[in-house]
């Protein structure tokens, strides 16, 4: 495995991305016991925030370099190629989901008690459901991160040149975020309301990642310097939020007893349009991770980190695989959710994710070696990994 890992890059981003992908698999399998231990239990942000931020970071590095070497149009074309791949993957997963619901419903032989479970938007209006799915306006449960990612990347393709002006990019992104939150703007959804993850708000997190990742030669990339004040600010944010999340799970009556605006505040933390507390929580965690974990930390090359680094480096296929595998995981736990099956789902799930990463890395390496020198694009490899 070691020789498949590219070490000439920031392994910290890779390992956290790998863990986030694993958490996405876990959180997409309700009833999975490991779900009680992922970061959503003790922070306002969850694996989705980590994933989007680090996708922006990887995108900033890879497509930024590509744009430097080949120009904007070429880099944008490659990004749109990714968008196309993701779109096809999403439609495939939509078909899988529909089949899964049908399968579950057929085996269940629905009981009177479950009258309310009219899951079948597809069965009620199949043609319209198809059209709406193609327009990304129909997003069944668990199929909402891919549409977000698709729109984020498509927007990024257009905005790539702004990477040269990072402060302008951040400013414009923040302005859009504020506007969208202020006016309550969202993309339309077929089932009413807007998208589960509003891309017009979530773009801010992606852009934060992208401007931090983009490092043209001869210019210092954007960095927040280490400062005890910032450390204190991060902890002042993360500790009370963590305590509140733990209280929600384990001692709700304490939360209700808190004086002041805390309860109402926690009530209002929305995920759809990336509430500022979620955004800040993620940025605070990223700040802490970037400064407290040295780039050269030994454990990043250790046996425990290695699988996650590899998964993080092959983000796209592993992400699609984690969504697909979560279908199988849910079906398995629907049949039996005892300790044996829990173990099987989690062990097999992680093994499959790792296998996908391994095969993808191995194939990528072979492909690069097979190309006669001179024909490969210098930045091709980098873009491959985003």
């Amino acid at each position, binding site marked *: 495995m070691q020789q498949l890992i590219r070490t000439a890059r920031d392994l910290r981003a890779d390992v956290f991305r790998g863990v986030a992908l694993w958490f996405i698999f876990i959180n997409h399998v309700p009833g999975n016991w490991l779900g009680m231990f992922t970061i959503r239990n003790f922070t306002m942000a969850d694996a989705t925030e980590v994933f989007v931020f680090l996708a922006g970071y990887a995108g900033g590095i890879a497509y930024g370099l590509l744009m430097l070497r080949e120009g904007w149009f070429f880099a944008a074309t490659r990004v749109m190629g990714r968008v196309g791949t993701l779109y096809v993957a999403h439609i495939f997963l939509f078909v899988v989901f529909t089949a899964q619901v049908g399968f579950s419903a057929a085996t269940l032989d629905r009981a009177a008690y479950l*009258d309310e479970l009219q899951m079948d938007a597809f069965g009620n209006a199949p043609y319209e459901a198809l059209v709406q799915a193609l327009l990304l306006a129909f997003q069944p449960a668990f199929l909402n991160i891919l549409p977000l990612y698709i729109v984020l990347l498509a927007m990024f393709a257009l905005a790539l040149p702004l990477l040269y002006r990072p402060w302008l990019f951040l400013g414009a992104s923040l302005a859009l975020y504020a506007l969208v939150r202020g006016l309550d703007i969202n993309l339309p959804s077929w089932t009413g309301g807007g998208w589960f993850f509003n891309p017009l708000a979530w773009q801010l997190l992606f852009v934060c990642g992208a401007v931090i990742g983009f490092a043209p030669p001869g210019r210092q990339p954007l960095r927040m310097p280490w400062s005890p004040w910032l450390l204190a600010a991060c902890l002042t944010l993360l500790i009370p939020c963590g305590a509140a999340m733990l209280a929600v799970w384990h001692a709700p009556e304490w939360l209700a007893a808190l004086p002041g605006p805390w*309860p109402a505040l926690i009530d209002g933390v929305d995920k759809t349009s990336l509430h500022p507390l979620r955004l800040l929580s993620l940025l605070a965690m990223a700040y802490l991770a970037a400064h407290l974990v040295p780039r050269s930390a030994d454990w990043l090359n250790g046996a425990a980190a290695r699988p996650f680094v590899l998964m993080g480096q092959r983000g796209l296929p592993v992400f699609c695989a984690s969504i697909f595998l979560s279908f199988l995981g*849910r079906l398995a736990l629907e049949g039996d959710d005892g300790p044996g099956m829990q173990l099987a789902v989690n062990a097999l799930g992680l093994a499959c994710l790792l296998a996908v990463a391994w095969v993808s890395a191995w194939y990528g390496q072979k492909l690069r070696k097979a190309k006669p020198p001179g024909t490969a694009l210098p930045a091709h490899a980098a873009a491959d990994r985003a």
Partner: protein
Amino acid sequence: MARLLLALMLLLGAPAWSAPCEVPAELMDGTTLPRSRAAIAAGELRILLGGSATAESGGPGTAYHARLAALLQQEHPGLRVVVEARGQRGASAAESLVLIMAALPGFRPHLVLWQTGTVEAVRSLEVDEFNETLSRGIARIRGSAAEVALIDQQFSRFLRANADIERYRDAMRLIAAAEGVALLRRYDWMYHWVETGGPDVERAPRPERAATLAQLNECLARAIALQLRHSTRP
């Protein structure tokens, strides 16, 4: 064999049996219900149960609001207990709130049990809107001087596999914690019963389904009665 016996007992019109549906202490909510406690002390307790289909399900005598009334009566012999239910199949939180609000002026309950969240998860309705409806609803019900307790989703493997149930459970847990209302954890109760050999409607063979459903309603009524005892302790 045990199930067969159970069905047989039901067919013969056996009285309420001791269903294997204990609720562990950690699945009880710690919030108190002072107004209900005062109502019990004063001699009359009116409870309104509002929700979707399951709020009105079950045949005569087995619908769980009726069983709840009977259990409370048993527990407090001198108390006048009235439990009314307002349910509608497929009602969202907003729709069941309308049913509840309509019943408030005439019935003037001391306690409203608002059973919701399943339809939202099934139809993937907006979580933010669900949150808003719950907050608004809790405020309006409190405005009528009644106490509120939320009853969360039913447990179902099908639901868990096919809907993003956790999001809506989290939402209810958050709202209940933030607003300081009791959350009756039906999902966890039902899951516990399924795990410990209690009623499991999804796995019951067709001929036993009606009996299992009745047993589930009995268990729910008992669990709610237990929670009320817990929340109205002096």
